[in-house]
């Protein structure tokens, strides 16, 4: 969004009106404090809120107290995260490390600002500090420099020591409401109302999940891996129970299909990472400084790992929501309440074929595999085992006691 063309308020953050108002009010009253915990699922608006706060505290010509102009260079750079006094710390590996806390975070916090009067230091995934990092950070939090605001993105408050949380003002970030997701779906090009409605229901409040579902896919021209659209993958996942019943040996081909999906999606992340590296390398004149190259490569590796896990989890979640809908429909509930309300006939067929006991068993199996994956088991093997078991389940008509 270019400033000047679009003078929308920085506080115009989809689905986070409450948090935005709390921040705006804090700036207006001059009660910003030293630290905030943005508590809520990742990626629902924390970035825009933190950057909005940076703009509100540093804009040289605010429209009103707490309301930055939204069109000056400071506002523009804050919104893009490119303002000198605004810094984001993302974990380079799986966790934030103590060396980063001491060598980067606290050093940045200790320096005066030369452009802008307030430093905004945002820790992305702050609940991923390991113990040593948390201890080192606590020291910095105990002696906060003036005009310095820490923002901690916290998805799971239990993962952070109370000593840190108790020094932060907590602000809740809510999952997105269906109306917000619907508007975002339109912006992302989900023009078909039925498709959009399905994506909104499945996204379950997460704009990131919605973005994945809205991915139009890629044909796979030379050099790139073909990728189906997000919704096509979703439909493939929910077709699995029926096809396990109808096609012999489908368990293995379904596992392979998910594996292909993992590859296609991680290839996308890989390409993005590579493009970013190439872009940066150009800025630096062919070759990146080693520290930065390493930092970005580590971060890209983490993103690929996360993408891989995310794809498998999404596939399992699609299966889960499908089975749950089967239960609902099979028990005579209103099909309009189903997540997969656009496929009621297929739900009915699966519900009939599996019976309530079969469906419950399937749900248990999927949940167990999902839990296993969080403990980092071999993804491919776990999936294969699950699908094979699900197929034996549907092959055993005796279990379908409700028929």
């Amino acid at each position, binding site marked *: 969004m270019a400033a000047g063309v679009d003078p929308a308020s920085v506080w115009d953050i989809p689905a986070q009106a409450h948090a935005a108002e709390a921040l705006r009010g804090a700036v207006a009253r001059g009660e910003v404090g030293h630290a905030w915990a943005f508590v809520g699922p990742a990626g629902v608006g924390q970035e825009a809120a933190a950057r909005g706060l940076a703009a509100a505290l540093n804009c040289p010509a605010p429209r009103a107290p707490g309301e930055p102009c939204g069109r000056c260079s400071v506002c523009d750079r804050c919104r893009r995260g490119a303002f000198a006094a605004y810094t984001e710390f993302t974990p380079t590996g799986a966790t934030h490390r103590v060396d980063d806390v001491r060598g980067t975070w606290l050093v940045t916090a200790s320096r005066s600002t030369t452009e802008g009067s307030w430093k905004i230091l945002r820790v992305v995934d702050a609940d991923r500090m390991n113990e040593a990092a948390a201890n080192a950070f606590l020291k910095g939090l105990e*002696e906060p420099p003036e005009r310095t605001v820490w923002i901690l993105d916290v998805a799971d408050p239990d993962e952070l020591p109370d000593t840190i949380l108790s020094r932060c003002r907590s602000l809740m970030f809510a999952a997105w409401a269906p109306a917000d997701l619907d508007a975002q779906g339109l912006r992302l090009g989900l023009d078909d109302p039925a498709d959009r409605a399905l994506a909104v229901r499945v996204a379950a409040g997460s704009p990131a999940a919605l973005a994945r579902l809205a991915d139009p896919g890629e044909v796979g021209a030379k050099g790139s891996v073909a990728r189906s659209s997000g919704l096509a993958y979703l439909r493939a996942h929910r077709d699995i129970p029926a096809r396990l019943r109808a096609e012999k040996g489908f368990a293995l081909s379904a596992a392979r299909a998910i594996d292909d999906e993992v590859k296609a999606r991680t290839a996308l992340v890989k390409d993005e990472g590579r493009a970013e590296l190439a872009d940066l390398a150009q800025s630096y004149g062919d070759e990146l400084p080693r520290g930065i190259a390493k930092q970005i490569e580590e971060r890209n590796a983490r993103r690929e790992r996360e993408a891989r896990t995310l794809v498998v989890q999404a596939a399992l979640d699609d299966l889960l929501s499908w089975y749950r809908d089967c239960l609902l429909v099979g028990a005579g509930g209103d099909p309009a309440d189903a997540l997969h309300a656009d496929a009621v006939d297929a739900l009915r067929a699966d519900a009939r074929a599996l019976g309530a006991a079969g469906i419950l068993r399937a749900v248990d199996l999927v949940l167990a595999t999902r839990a296993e994956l969080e403990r980092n088991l071999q993804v491919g093997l776990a999936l294969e085992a699950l699908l094979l078991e699900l197929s034996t389940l549907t092959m055993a008509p005796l279990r379908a006691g409700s028929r």
Partner: protein
Amino acid sequence: MKFRAERSEFADAAMWALRTVGARATLPALSGVKLEVSGDRLSLSSTDLEIASELSVAVQADRDGMALVPGRLLGDVVRSLPNAAVSAEVDGDRLHLVCGRAQFALRLMPVEDFPALPQISEQAAIAVMKAEEFARTVAQVARASSTDDARPVLTGVSLEASAGSLTAAATDSYRLAVRTVPWDAGAETTALVPRRALDEARRSAEQLGAEVRIAIEPSQVTFTFGDRRLTSRLIEGKYPDYRQLIPVGFERRLAVDRAELMEVVRRVSVVGESNTTATPVTLHVTSDTVRVTAGSGEVGQAEESLPGTLEGEPIEIGFNPRYLSDGLDVAVSERVVLEFRDELKPAVLRPAPADDQDDSAKEQVADFLYLLMPVRL
């Protein structure tokens, strides 16, 4: 933007500006050098957010404007310029440089992402020092600062200006270096300057000579050398009250040849060098001799003696050899004095004025002090 410049002047300016080019993944603009033509001057600037460089040179300006070019590429280009006038012009998304038969095109970076560089405000406390004097002061003091980021304030050098004098001090809590120099600004002010920034300013002072103009403000310090300027952010936080560490008076006072003691300490401490933690050196001081020993039975032992004059009772006192050598290294006079209370209290090392020096030279050596904590033996 379009200008014509003299090659060596342009290259020299670019190389100087390149010293503070930054490297931050989230803010690629820091990797650029900003060129700006206004009137008949070209200014070049860069910043890594901690230190900013700015300088301007006279050019034949055809069109005002600004451009941000990748620092590394600019460096490569400048190093390979043939000996001819340089003409530069922004065209579309490139900066075209022509120098003799050589032509270069540098891709432009978004100049609006380059941070606004700080200016010196009218309220700044400004004073002028001889560049040589400034460089020596930094060299004497900065080395005592800490390299451990866990306590950011100790990684800086404290500057304290009061009527007539400027005191620079640094400590890593094992040793403390303090130097006071005359200062012609009246205002009382303090600044905690990152060591790296001061070292950068020292290098510029050594390279450029003449005078340095120092401007201290609440959130920055600026060193100006003619048309060149280095600005540093400050470290925020309370600097420890180091003055209370400095003992008042002493019970023993050793006068010794500085270079000789340094050499002896260096040779003797070789014994402990293979150890990860420095093996202390012990000074056994008697009325006319300093015997320096190091090591124990296991790692090997070394000892060597040199003449020295002690006032007071004999003493045995241990030091980290590196900290002792650092202090001797920066004391700059022919002879030094070491003042002790006892073997557990901090020792104070000062340059000793030679008898034949004039008063101003005596004053110069008298205003430096290096305090070091003994190692318990």
